[in-house]
């Protein structure tokens, strides 16, 4: 294709997005659009898969059968999200095995929040309440993003995420209405998860490299700082309701702006974790890589069996 032809296709493509039409896998799309989507969707898928681990850590120790069942269901949902996000990504011409390979080799990223340890039961509440809460704020706008398969996957994801978020809040509520030990456990979890949750909404706009292009493609509708403010404004009253304290001495309602002011985020910590030096980065990757490597013989067997079956059917057909 000549440069001119490409330019013209690009113009048509951008116009379609501007008209809020969905781009489908078989449609022409600029290479950068494809690559950006592969990066973002797979990163999202990886986050679901890695995100199973910190919560999976408490399945065997859940404090009641009801909570054990709910936690199992939640982790299962996350695996499901991973599944349809990988499927959405595959429509862009990349295989799930390639994507796994990027994850396992450290080339692909996943949400840094999952590199923090889950050390008490209250962390199951805090993750639902705060982490899923922040995720929803990130993800709701994506239900209208331009790439069809991603937008449709997000509709489903968001519905389940808000269920998870309510469930997490309910765990916190139960703790906060419980004994002093339980309430302290809830406070301790808020102390540990608050700042990482704020970081989850991404670097400040000044440091964010992908924002402008993503806005145009409707991969982003608001800046990181706007999303963060929205998260804080929404979450602080919930903490008040729970009767626990957000661990930020600078947090204060600002009548003028109609928002909460808040303290400085420790971006050093953010970048440390992003670069692989968080408390659990190595463990998470080892767990994933071990699962993958120890499962190789199983996947090989399934493949061999499927091929044999194919042949058997073919023989019967002849």
């Amino acid at each position: 294709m000549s440069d001119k032809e490409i330019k013209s296709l690009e113009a048509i493509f951008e116009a379609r997005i501007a008209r809020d039409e969905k781009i489908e896998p078989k449609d022409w799309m600029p290479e950068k659009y494809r690559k950006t989507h592969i990066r973002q969707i797979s990163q999202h898928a990886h986050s679901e898969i890695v995100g199973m681990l910190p919560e999976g850590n408490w399945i065997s120790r859940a404090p009641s059968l009801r909570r054990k069942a709910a936690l199992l269901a939640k982790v299962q949902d996350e695996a499901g999200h991973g599944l349809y996000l990988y499927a959405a990504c595959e429509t862009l011409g990349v295989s799930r095995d390639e994507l796994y390979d990027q994850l396992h080799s450290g080339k692909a990223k996943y949400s840094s929040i999952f590199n923090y340890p889950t050390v008490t039961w209250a962390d199951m509440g805090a993750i639902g309440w705060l982490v899923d809460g922040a995720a929803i704020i990130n993800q709701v706008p994506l239900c209208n993003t331009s790439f069809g398969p991603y937008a449709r996957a997000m509709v489903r994801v968001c519905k389940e995420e808000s269920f998870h978020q309510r469930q997490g809040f309910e765990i916190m509520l139960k703790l906060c209405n419980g004994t002093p030990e339980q309430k302290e456990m809830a406070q301790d979890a808020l102390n540990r998860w608050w700042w990482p949750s704020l970081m989850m909404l991404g670097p400040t706009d000044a440091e964010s490299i992908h924002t402008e292009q993503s806005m145009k493609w409707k991969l982003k509708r608001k800046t990181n700082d706007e999303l963060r403010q929205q998260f804080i404004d929404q979450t602080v009253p919930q903490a008040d309701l729970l009767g626990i304290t957000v661990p930020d001495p600078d947090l204060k309602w600002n009548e003028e702006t109609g928002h909460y002011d808040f303290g400085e985020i420790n971006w050093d910590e953010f970048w440390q974790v992003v670069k692989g030096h968080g408390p659990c980065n190595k463990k998470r990757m080892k767990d994933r890589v071990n699962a993958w490597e120890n499962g190789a013989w199983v996947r090989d067997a399934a493949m061999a069996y499927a091929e044999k079956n194919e042949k058997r059917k073919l023989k019967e057909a002849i």
Partner: protein
Amino acid sequence: MKNQHLFNYIISIADNSLILGQRLGELCGHGPTLETDIAGTNIALDLIGQTRNYYQYAAKIQGGGKTEDDIAFLRLEKEYKNVLLVEQPNTHFGYVMGRQFLFDVFHLLFMNQLMQSKDDTLAAIAKKGVKEVSYHKRFSSDWIKRLGDGTPESNAKMQEAINDLWAYTDELFDQTEADKAMASEGIAVDTTKLKESYYKEVSEVLEEAKLTVPERKYFTRGGKKGVHSEYMGYILTELQYMQRTYPNMEW
């Protein structure tokens, strides 16, 4: 005393689901594929659901304000009456599927009979559970075939698991005092009558999967009498941790 037998009988059924569900729960996020992770978690979820139904019923019989969680989390090891099979570890995926398959075949035969129980609650639980268990059995049988008739490596691994787990199959049919008392009243399933069908079904799948049906004279038993393997203690340290550490709280 009738109630004590009924209580014991319910517990002995439910404990199998609890412990197998617990074992499957350990695997979440560590399986060979995303699809098996989803299925395994789903089976765990079904089993924990069934457990809750049974324990809620048992708690009602026991009275005194006891709840499903008291029964699930606050017994001593020897008061758990699950068979040894379900407490065996997730050594590798062949063991996971082998354990599941050897239990599922029994479980479905059992549930089909329990639907006929004169006890309406048990019959209702079974009626609801039988659909789930049919799916479990289909899933595990398929994997037995895939692994048995997959690669030489997978065949060897699957055979190893079946050989090891086989020793625990006979206990499935043991009858406790509660079993016998309840069977005589048409409440319990007479497990001795399931044995022939069980080994026939299991053998057919193994043969189709190109696996050798183990020949074995000696079987290992104990769980139904509350004498468990050394694995059980560790299962309980995790299962009971929260309830033991923070007693008398709501979650």
